[in-house]
């Protein structure tokens, strides 16, 4: 392991690590908590839950979100559900099984200790949410209902129709609102974090430079604000929007974690991107974002393309429709290739299989980039009414966008960028390589390895926010009880503010000829083509050069209208895209370095004869953590070896 990386995993048996550690961790007494400030960036499941929990514990909290209300964070869009090892279905589920499924689903590229802790606290999450009044789906007896999700053989997913993320987020938002009312949390909405500020630790010189605050921008007035704290928690989400088109919200961005990276927080496994198999296909150049259809649809829908090339061509040309293809001429390729899991294989496997068929010429729309998800068989088996009660809202959503009735005509779907497993490197305490800077939820890298299982993002966000960081942050803050409040009139704050003001002034005075979106689209195209579902050495090498060129062009030609001291969404975008243009290059470098295929990272050079991902455990069973060395310099790679004491590393098989 690199000398700069210490995962701080507690010793002892895997099953006891967390409970043992929790009982030994240093505490901050209630009278001292009042005098300790914590900043939380982002109010999704991880940030909202963390800010609310810190407030309940008595810390003095400042929470920031760029949306007009903390309730709008993108966690709200998660549809399908949240996993928990409750075993309410009596189908053999357990903490160990959830742990094992997650490790295997992540293709043996995540940390055993973190994942086991996640599986343990999963059960508390459901209890907490029900106590908050989250209206999960129930059976007629009044008990909670479950459904199954990809990559597992038990029913452990709790859900609230197709709006599970919304209900969980509103639960966290209500807990947060309660603390805002109580005065423990001060909420800054329509604020974006522009930089993290580091200072020398005055109480413990051994810690060196520690995170002591942020620079934030008020998006309405444009004012640059200084906020100090004893610790900063990033909960700013994933960076899927580097692809321009993704299922992320339009405002989702990497800026908070990228600024942290540039100040010394390592970025881990940035190339691990989840491409979700069931999204609506692209329809044209006007498109600004892609829409996801819940994975739960694969419980009852069957995925297929025509067996005969001539049928596929006729469909692409609009001469035939799905209804003209008899059952015998349909290729249910997931059931054919993966009989054990069928249509419920994990997301990475399902996405690649769709791409494989479409690349071979069997796509089923004008662009040749779509496959069918067919409910005909489910309707025959259980009737249209039952299908409607399970998926009614999703069918309605599909019909609104695609203008086709999915009860009559199979849905057309295609993979799209959805989630990023990579992110800011954190140790077992969720602390980054900058002391006092923590990262939670999608913005850290820790629990999903190279591929995340469905319904596990909500679980991880809430686990981090409610049940992990409230404990682990105390261990760090216990050394800050004598520090006193942190001043903001320091050279470090001056410097950070000056840098960001210069950047803003640059954008507004550049007067180039192209809009921010022009560059973002160009970057997105390269990322999708070369660093998307399939990657290879040649493409990645070229992509790195191409991204550098776009970046140079951007700084020459970008045009941002308006002023700095007003509501100016084009300026917000420019500041975000500038960071995406640097991140894209790092993702390609990481993908190029990883000479193996694992989970969502598929290098064409490394595959089995059957086209499955071929891992290289001997050389790549490590976390690649990158250290920033300057925008135009190569970053330095640090390796955290992954040790598996409790599971055997196998080729992942869903056959």
């Amino acid at each position, binding site marked *: 392991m690199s000398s700069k990386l210490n995962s701080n995993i507690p010793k002892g048996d895997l099953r006891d690590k967390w409970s043992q550690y929790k009982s030994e961790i240093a505490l901050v007494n209630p009278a001292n908590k009042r005098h300790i400030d914590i900043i939380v960036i982002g109010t999704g499941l991880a940030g909202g839950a963390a800010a609310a929990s810190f407030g309940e514990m008595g810390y003095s909290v400042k929470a920031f979100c760029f949306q007009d209300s903390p*309730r709008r964070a993108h966690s709200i869009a998660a549809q399908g559900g949240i996993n928990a090892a409750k075993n309410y279905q009596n189908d053999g589920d357990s903490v160990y099984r959830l742990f094992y499924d997650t490790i295997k689903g992540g293709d043996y590229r995540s940390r055993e200790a973190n994942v086991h802790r996640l599986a343990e606290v999963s059960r508390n999450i459901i209890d907490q949410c029900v106590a908050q009044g989250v209206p*999960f789906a129930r059976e007629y007896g*009044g008990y909670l209902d479950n459904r199954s999700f990809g990559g597992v053989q038990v029913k452990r997913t709790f859900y609230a129709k197709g*709006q599970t993320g919304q209900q969980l987020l509103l639960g966290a938002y209500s807990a947060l609102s309660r603390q805002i009312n109580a005065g423990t949390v001060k909420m800054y909405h329509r604020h974006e974090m522009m930089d993290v500020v580091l200072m020398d630790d005055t109480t413990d010189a051994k810690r060196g430079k520690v995170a002591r605050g942020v620079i934030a921008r008020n998006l309405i007035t444009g004012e640059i604000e200084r906020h100090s704290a004893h610790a900063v928690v990033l909960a700013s989400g994933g960076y899927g929007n580097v692809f321009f088109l993704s299922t992320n*919200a339009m405002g989702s961005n990497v800026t908070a974690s990228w600024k942290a990276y540039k100040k010394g927080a390592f970025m881990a496994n940035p190339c691990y991107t989840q491409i979700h198999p069931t999204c609506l296909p692209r329809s044209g150049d006007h498109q600004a974002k892609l829409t996801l259809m819940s994975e739960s649809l694969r419980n009852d829908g069957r995925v297929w393309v025509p067996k005969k090339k001539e049928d596929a061509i006729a469909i692409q040309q609009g001469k035939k429709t799905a209804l003209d293809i008899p059952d015998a001429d349909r290729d249910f390729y997931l059931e054919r290739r993966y009989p054990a899991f069928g249509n419920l294989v994990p997301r990475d496997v399902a996405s690649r299989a769709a791409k494989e068929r479409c690349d071979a010429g069997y796509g089923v729309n004008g662009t040749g980039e779509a496959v069918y998800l067919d409910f005909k068989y489910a309707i025959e088996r259980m009737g249209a009414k039952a299908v409607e009660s399970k998926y009614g809202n999703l069918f309605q959503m599909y019909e609104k966008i695609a203008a086709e009735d999915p009860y009559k005509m199979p849905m057309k779907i295609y993979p799209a960028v959805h989630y990023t497993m990579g992110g800011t490197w954190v140790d077992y305490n969720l602390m980054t390589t900058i002391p006092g800077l923590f990262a939670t939820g999608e913005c850290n890298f820790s629990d999903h390895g190279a591929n995340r299982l469905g319904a596990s993002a909500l679980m991880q966000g809430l686990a981090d926010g409610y049940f992990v960081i409230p404990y682990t942050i105390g261990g760090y803050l216990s050394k800050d009880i004598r520090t006193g409040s942190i001043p903001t009139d320091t050279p470090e704050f001056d410097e950070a503010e000056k840098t960001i003001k210069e950047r803003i002034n640059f954008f507004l005075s550049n007067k180039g000829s192209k809009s921010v979106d022009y560059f973002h689209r160009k970057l997105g195209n390269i990322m999708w083509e070369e660093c998307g579902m399939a990657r290879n050495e040649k493409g990645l090498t070229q992509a790195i050069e191409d991204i550098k060129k776009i970046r140079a062009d951007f700084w020459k030609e970008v045009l941002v209208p308006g002023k700095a001291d007003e509501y100016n*969404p084009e300026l917000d975008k420019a500041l975000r895209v500038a960071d995406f243009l640097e991140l894209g290059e790092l993702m390609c470098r990481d993908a190029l370095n990883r000479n193996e295929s694992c989970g969502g990272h598929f290098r064409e050079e490394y595959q089995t004869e059957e086209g499955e991902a071929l891992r290289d455990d001997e050389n790549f069973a490590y976390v690649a953590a990158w250290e920033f060395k300057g925008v135009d310099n190569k970053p330095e790679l640090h390796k955290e070896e992954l040790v598996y004491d409790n599971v055997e590393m196998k080729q992942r098989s869903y056959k």
Partner: protein
Amino acid sequence: MNFTLKIWRQKGAKDSGQFVTYPIKDISSDSSFLEMIDILNNQLVEKGEEPIAFDHDCREGICGMCSMYINGHPHGPENLITTCQLHMRSFKDGDSITIEPWRSSAFPVIKDLVVDRSAFDRIIQAGGYVSVNTGNAQDANNIPIPKTDADKAFDAATCIGCGACVAACKNASAMLFTSAKVSQLALLPQGQVEAKARVENMVAQMDKEGFGACTNTGACSAECPKGISIENIARMNREFIKAKLSSENV
């Protein structure tokens, strides 16, 4: 498709605004309403003009951020969708389309089509929660909840807080929004302990924010993109009367 857009432009909260007309050409019928505004904005930016400010984020009808008053209807002519889910195939080629921000004094305009909806947050902060600290919960299946109650609570809880109900109401009343949260928690056993204080405090905050009174017109529910039922207002009124009859806040 070609359209004539009449869009409300307003520099800031204290400035007066006006409609500005923009012709737009060659829009695909598959394009979403907001994608059409994106296209217009890119054209404006490249001409060096200021783009139209509008709120939007998830673009899949769930975050509640988008908020356009289109041809006299919040979220446009179709039912049960948000502005971001509206597609241009819902209009005819050559149509004139009028776009305004939400109109309510409790939602002041920030710029163009962007309004300040923080009044909704303050209503929730006044009591829209169950006071349970992290880690206090018992096992989730200890209290069975009848499915019909859970389903009704869920239906109320699907409110996205967009404010269309206020925009649709001639009195700019926030009764549908407030009652959706009160109802959700009133229907669940977890919400009972604080039921009285909750409804009193939330209604008081709603009045303080300057939202108008409810006259049971039903426009809120008819225009709600999530179909939140007006039944929730009736339930909140019952909760309110129940609370007031035994209130200690006299």
